[in-house]
Structure formats: C-alpha cells, structure tokens
C-alpha cells in the first residue's frame, strides 16, 4: 500500500490504438500515468484499445473525447503499417479536430527485421499532420517520450487557446483549485504496446 500523495493540474484522456491482432486485450484496458510538462503535473488516463479487428466497432466508441491518440504499428510487420490510413480515418472522424495524434513505430529494437522504413513512416506522418516516433516497448526506448510529446502538444494547444477546455469532449480536465490528495497506482500498468505480437 504505497501511498504517495501527488497533485496534478490536468487529466488528459489518451487512446492507444494498436495495429496488431493482439489477442490479449478485450475491448479496452486502462492505465494511468503521471507526467510533467512545463512544471505542470498531468495525469494521463490511458484507454488502451484492442487491436483485434472484431473489436473495432466497440473500440471506436471510446475514441470520442480523447485529447491524444497514439497509433501504434509494428515496424517489423508491414501489414500493421498498411492498416494505418483506415484507422486514421476512424480516429479523425471520431475525435475532435484538436486531438493530437502521434504515430508510433513499435519494436524499434528489432532493426534487423525492419519492414517499414523510418523515412516513409515519417513522411506519412507529416502528410497527415501526425507526430511521429519510433519506440520499443520491450526496451522502453522512447515510450515515455511518446506520452510526453503528445502531452506537450496538447498542453501547447491549451496555452495558445486552440484547445477549449470548456468545450465538450476536449479530453482534458483542468483542476484549477487547491491540490488534492491522491495515490499513485500501486499496480504497475502493463505496457500494451509491448504485447509480443
């Protein structure tokens, strides 16, 4: 029962969409993370959706009101990359225009088996206005950065006023008042991008 009171100023809803037939997840699993952007503590409420096609209809229901979307493909399996545009259309249609979408090429540690080049994914991301990173859930490389980059962008949108916190489904909750007690999750959240499929 490790109790650690912490204060956070914002809650961001993140949705993770994994382009893989990962049999481990039914529908959606949840995780929580606390990160810090510009000295502000931000709690990420992570909705980790199933990669299975048969759950696509149900996971689409959860996109609404996400502040950030992480679209994860597998750099060693081209098929996962090829699915991107259809899922991206989904994500665009179901989230609000300010939702920050970050494209993540997972399994960056398996360079030898690479099937999708960094350059083409980067180009795809730029064409579609997405942030882009290659990461490895196995080694943890860039994973934190992925969460952080998206959060920075969201925070920036809040600061320059392009993201209206009072708008419905902004995916962001701001806590303006005094700090509030809370506890870090005692159960380490599994890295869903890391599911070995």
């Amino acid at each position, binding site marked *: 029962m490790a109790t650690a009171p912490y204060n956070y100023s914002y809650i961001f809803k993140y949705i993770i969409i994994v382009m893989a037939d990962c049999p481990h997840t039914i*529908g959606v699993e949840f995780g929580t993370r606390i990160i810090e952007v510009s000295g502000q503590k931000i709690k990420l409420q992570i909705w980790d959706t199933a990669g299975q096609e048969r759950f696509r209809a149900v996971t689409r229901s959860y996109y609404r009101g996400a502040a950030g979307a992480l679209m994860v493909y597998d750099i060693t399996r081209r098929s996962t990359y090829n699915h991107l545009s259809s899922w991206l259309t989904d994500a665009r249609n179901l989230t609000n225009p300010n939702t920050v979408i970050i494209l993540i090429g997972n399994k960056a540690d398996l360079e030898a088996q690479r099937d999708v080049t960094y350059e083409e994914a980067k180009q795809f991301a730029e064409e579609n206005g997405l942030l882009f990173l290659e990461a490895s859930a196995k080694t943890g490389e860039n994973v934190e950065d992925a969460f952080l980059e998206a959060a920075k962008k969201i925070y920036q949108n809040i600061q320059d006023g392009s993201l209206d916190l009072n708008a419905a489904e902004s995916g*962001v909750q*701001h806590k303006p008042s005094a700090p509030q007690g*809370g506890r870090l999750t005692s*159960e380490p959240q599994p890295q869903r991008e890391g599911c070995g499929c």
Partner: protein
Amino acid sequence: MSDDVSDGSGAGDKAEMTEMPNSASLPEDTDVHCDLATISNEPTPVDPGGDVLEGAAIQDADTATAEHPERPTETPLNGEVAEDTLAECIDSVSLEAELGSEIPLKEQSDPAEGSLPREGGWAGWGSWGKSLLSSASATVGHGLTAVKEKAGATLRIHSVNSGASEGPQLDTENGVPEGTDAAPDQSPAKSPPTSPSPSSGGMLSAISNVVQNTGKSVLTGGLDALEFIGKKTMNVLAESDPGFKRTKTLMERTVSLSQMLREAKEKEKQRLAQQLSAERTAHYGLLFDEYQGLSHLEALEILSNESERKVQSFLASLDGEKLELLKSDLISIKDVFAAKELENEENQEEPGFEEKGEEFASMLTELLFELHVAATPDKLNKAMKKAHDWVKEEQPTVSVDVAKESKGETEKEEQEENPDDSQEDKKEERATKTVEEVYLLSIESLAEVTARCIEQLHKVAELILHGQEEEKATLDQAKVLVKLTTAMCNEVASLSKKFTNSLTTVGSNKKAEVLNPMINSVLLEGCNSTTYVQDAFQLLLPVLQVSHIQTSCWQHPTSRPAVGNHSHDDQTRSLEDTAGCIALIHALEGDVFYASLATNIHLRTLQAILHSVKNANFQRVCISPHVYVVFYK
C-alpha cells in the same frame, strides 16, 4: 436465488415464446417496406431522435388509455400485448429523462458522498467527467436511504454480537432525543449512529463527509436565510440526508445555528487539511478510481448510451406491428432487469447468504459460460480471493470452517501461489495487524472488488456487443446477468460483513468511539459498492436490447453475416450474400454510418454499396437521409 429469478420473470418467458415466431418471420414480411416507405414522406424521421419517438409513444399511450381506461394492465393476452406495452414503453423511452431528473439531486449530495471525490470537485470541467459523475452515483438518492436502513439494521446485529459496541450505540441514540422527536419518520434504529467524536476525523470517510460538506454548501448557500428558517428546517433536511444527523447532534450543543455552521465549516477545512497530510487515510473513492473502477464505469456508460441511441433510432424507423413486437421484446428484457432489483433486496435480508460466497469463483465462471461470452473472470476472482484470504486470517475463532473453505478454494484456483507459504506469511502479518490496518484493508478490498466487478460487467458488455462467438437468446442472457449481478452483490455484502466482524474481533479492546466509525464506514462503503455494481448492471440494459435487435431483426436466422474482418469490398459482398436479409443501415452521427453488417461505412461507401445492391436485384428504400432499408427481391 436462481429459482426466484426464473419465477419472477416467468411472464416475460411466455411473452418471448409467443412472439418469437413473429420476429423470426420478420424478413419475409413484405408489408414492412410499404410501412417504412410511408414514413419517408413524413418530416419527422429526418431526425430519428429520442424526442420524436418519445412524443409519439406518449401520444399513443394517451390514446390507448383513453380508449381503455379500465382495462387492467396485468393481462398480457396476445391480442392486447400491443396496447399494454405502449404504456410501458414510455418507461423505457423516457428512461434517460428519469435519470436526468435525478442529476440535480446527485450534484447536491455527491460531493458529500465522498466516494467520488475527484469528480465532485471537478463537476462542470469536462463533459466526460461530469457524465461519469452522474452515472457513478446514479442512485445516490435511494442509495443513501438504503445505506441508512442497512447500516441501522446491521448495526443492531453488531450490538448483539459484540458487547463493546452496544453501550455507546445506545448512548448516541439517547443523545439525540430532540432530533428524533422533531423528525418522527427518522426512527433511531434506522439512522446510523454516527459518533461526533473529533478523533474519528479522517477515518470517518463518508458519513462525516456528508455532514461537513452539507454544512459547507449550506453555508455558501445563504447563512442568514437559513438562520432565519431555523432548526426545524434542519430536521427536515436531515431526513433526506442521514449524515446530517451529526450536524444535528452538534446543534444540540451550540446555541446559535450560525455558530454551528461555522464550526462545521472549520471542521471540514481541518479535515481536508488533515487528509492531505494523512497518507494512510482510506479513501474508497480514490482507491476505486485507482483500480480503474471509474474508467470501466465510464466506458460502460459510453457503450450504454450509444446502445440506447441505437435502440431509439431503430424504434423510430419501425412502424405498426413490427414496432409493437419489438417493443414488447425490449420490454420483456427490461422487466428482467427491473425484477432483479426486487429480488436482490430480498436476498440482502437473507441471513445465510454469506456461506454462498465461497462458491463465488466457480459460480462466476459458470455464469459467464452460460452467457456465451468469452469473458474470463480471472481478475475478479483474484481480487475476491485476496480479500477473503486476508480476512480469514483475521478470524481465528472460526478457523475450522475457514480451513475447509480455503482448501476448497485453493483447489479451484490452481494458478495461485503455494497456499501454505502465503498462509504462513499472513499469519505473521496477522500478529502485527492493528485495527487501523484491518480498516484500511477492508476499504481497499471493497474498492478493488467493486472495481473488478464493474470491469467484469464492462467486458461482458463489450463482448455482447461485438465479440460474441455464438448467439444466445437475449432474454436468457438477461436472466443470467441478473444472477451474475446478484452473485456479485451478495459477495460484496458478505465481504463487508466479514470485514466488520474482523474489525470487531481485532478491535475488541478499543473504545467504541474509535471502532464504531470504522465499522460504520465499512458498512457504508459496502452498500455503496453494491449500489455501484447494480448501477453498472442497469447500464447493460440498452446493450442487451441492441444486441436483441441485432440478432432478431438485422439478421437472417440462417445466414449470419460475419462482423468485422472485412474490408469495404467484403462488406459489400456480405451484404449481397445475405439473401433474404433485411439490412438496416443506421446513421448515428454526422457522416459516420453504422450497419449491422459493416463496422465502418461512410456516406460514399454506403452509396456505392446501395448502388451495387440495386443492380443485384436488391431494392433500396430510403426512409430518411440517414436510414436506409435494403430488401432482397
């Protein structure tokens, strides 16, 4: 218990059986498209929202009652089913409105509830947080009343069980004779005797929160006005708010109402300050959130609302006999859900239910299997086992029974670690466990188990909607879900009882002022827990209804189109392949379309499909710009 379920819904059974042939023959019924086509000339279906339907239903019901004012509604003979159900259907249609009307009440009492602290402070900051707030505490109003009664009842049991708590309880009751006189409805036995002792501070999580937050909101609301209104008003307020009793007790000791209110406000401030520093304070709401209970509840609510919209828009697209048949189907599902509440209340009063708890794991697996959904209850079973395990170790007096039970359970759950080792570990722990630790564990266990129950129900909803391998009659699924929820609630109730027993044992040397608030708090959170589970269960109703529509209306019984795993081309093909099938393609929002055959169709794709369908001897009937019906010629 299970017998009760089937008995209670026997009427529903019959209704289902008589209506089955009708809904099965639905695809062949060519009258439909004439009806549907007629609708397209009317302006209303352009926006087939709930309002339209509700209005229509109310109108219908009005005429129905006007025509048959004396007809008893309890005779669902075949000929009359249609009219009977009309009146009832208003219930289902306006379900949302009913929920909505509860919201103001919730918002009043929710910050005080204490179990959803984050949302309490954040109401209005984001629609998702807010909507969550409303669902999470959907029954705070009646929940509190139930808590009041149950806490009172259980406390009486406790005063019999342990001499320690008897004396002080009576004291507390005798201490407020004026309050009970002024509010005759509030019998002392029913009110939870909350101790006004300041030492209980952070430990009294919910009850004291109720008092102090109420006090606070009253303060901001208008001190002067309240002072003028006086004491009597306070008693009236107190009737609907059990926690307010503490404020009332305070009132006995202070002359001026304003002074009392200021005191309450200061105390609240102090308590908040203490809570920030006191890390070990058990906070059910925070813990529940930590085990992702709130997230799962929120997700379940999304599915439920979406399903409700689909049901309403589908109903809006139907007419005449089809509409009545479907309505009566949906109502029979609803009846199963409604019957559940009664049945559960009965069960909670049964004294022997806690013995059933040990079979919970296998029962859970069995019920999920019966549901025909591929959900595994591993997480919930683990949480339950964890909770039972630690509390067993706190009950050396009943060790004979416990040993037997734990053997049975460990055999069932072979994936668990070596039972001998863990038991030894826990025995060592036990020696050092204080009342506070038992209390903290109790609250945490309740929060965890409840969160897992809600997660389980959420998973079931997901699987019913989109992951089912095999169809099972929705009405049967509803009945199994009733059993499942009842089992969960009984288990939670049994746990909270065990926890309070454990507290009583461990804290037998403690003063009642210390022990009673803890016991009260555990009982209160136990009641909250069952309320959350029941709320989550109610959210499944639209999910089952939409599932029923999908299985009975959108599909031909012999050729079930595969859902998912299709590109748009495949979807076109499966639409064509489904000979004799009526495919209803519904618009839900904007330009995103939903079809029973396709998971994701956009307007252009839809037009393409409909075009190809036309060429392939399908006839398209456009009901409105958003709803199409496709017939096979």
